[in-house]
């Protein structure tokens, strides 16, 4: 069944954990955009949600760091963080081991990925699921791109991963939705937390909406770090989502810098029907 939905969203822990410190007006508008995204996923009648995330040393560490990993379990627990700190209660989200296995097998035709039969979600997946599957009741297939511990896979490999995920999603009988989640410019969890380069973000999202492969892959990590921070390395998740929707045009449904959330909060999707 062809891929039924592709979108991207932010995942910063402050979105839930520091919600009370944000301007209520802009926060609620952002939450409303997340609700719209949830309804769009529900309308797609997706039977599984592939979440391309950039986890933060919850499962993968520098003792054995995969560039790319895909979950292959029947359930995933989270959040790994203190539930009070993240303001998300402990949950067990369903997976689909058999579907994961078929997707991984197809992805491996072109991209080497690690697989994981155990995976604890951190905020990178827990925050999007909190909004998109509030009951944690839709099967999830987590995909990770190492965006934290360099050396990182080059951007063109993130594109290749996205292409492989699209091919894999199209090859299975289930209806699959795909969400990429990460920051654009940000300096999370450092003294620079709260800095957001809005102009850089809007330029990146323009390239993303145009699904301009060459323009998206023209970034390099040194310039990304200088202009968009180490959090900008997470553009890999957006680039993979763009590749999964190659040829489609995208729309930014919401963008606003919310410094207490430490990121330019973003909700966007591609029109796969055109």
């Amino acid at each position, binding site marked *: 069944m062809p891929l039924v939905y592709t979108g991207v969203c932010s995942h910063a822990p402050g979105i839930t954990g520091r919600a009370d410190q944000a301007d209520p007006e802009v926060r609620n508008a952002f939450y409303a955009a997340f609700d719209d995204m949830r309804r769009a996923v529900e309308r797609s009648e997706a039977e599984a949600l592939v979440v391309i995330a950039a986890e933060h040393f919850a499962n993968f*560490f520098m003792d054995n760091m995969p560039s790319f990993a895909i979950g292959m379990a029947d359930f995933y627990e989270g959040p790994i963080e203190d539930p009070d700190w993240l303001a998300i209660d402990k949950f067990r989200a369903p997976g689909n081991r058999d579907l994961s296995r078929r997707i991984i097998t197809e992805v491996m035709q072109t991209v080497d990925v690690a697989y994981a039969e155990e995976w604890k979600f951190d905020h990178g997946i827990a925050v999007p699921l909190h909004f998109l599957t509030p009951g944690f009741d839709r099967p999830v297939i987590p995909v990770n791109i190492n965006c934290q511990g360099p050396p990182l896979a080059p951007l063109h490999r993130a594109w290749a991963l996205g292409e492989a995920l699209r091919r894999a999603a199209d090859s299975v009988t289930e209806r699959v939705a795909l969400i990429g989640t990460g920051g654009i410019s940000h300096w999370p969890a450092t003294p620079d937390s709260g800095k957001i380069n809005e102009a850089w973000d809007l330029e990146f999202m323009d390239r993303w909406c145009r699904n301009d492969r060459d323009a998206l892959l023209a970034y390099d990590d040194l310039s990304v770090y200088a202009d968009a921070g180490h959090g900008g390395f997470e553009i890999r998740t957006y680039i993979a989502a763009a590749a999964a929707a190659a040829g489609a045009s995208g729309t930014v449904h919401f963008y606003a810098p919310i410094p207490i959330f430490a990121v330019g909060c973003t909700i966007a999707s591609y029109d796969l029907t055109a």
Partner: protein
Amino acid sequence: MSLYYVQKFLYQLNRDPQLQQRYRQDRRSVLEPYELTGEEIEALVEPDVGLLFHLGVNGQILMHFAAFHRIEWADYLQRMRDGIARYGPVREGVYATTGYEGTDAHAARLGQQSGPLSHRPTSSEEEGD
């Protein structure tokens, strides 16, 4: 200098409630299996968040250690700033290898104000980031 093992300990502490329980009871004994310098042990036991950031601990690991010690977010950010002021630039790790310039340099580059940022993009009256 064993940043890898400092981060490995924190990575394991962050994800293992049983290790957290043991650490609450006896911090030093839990650190024994790790290849750590005296400076690193003291930074962890204190805990000296500013020194740990200066040593190069990734913020995605360090922020959970701060939360474990019930250090509030704004205080966590300030402790890192104080650590850089006291100990100097980040020595190692992703922030050092990619040319960490410090908050003021970043603010200047981005044409933004330095220091605490506003909650609201359109207002400069409130503190916190």
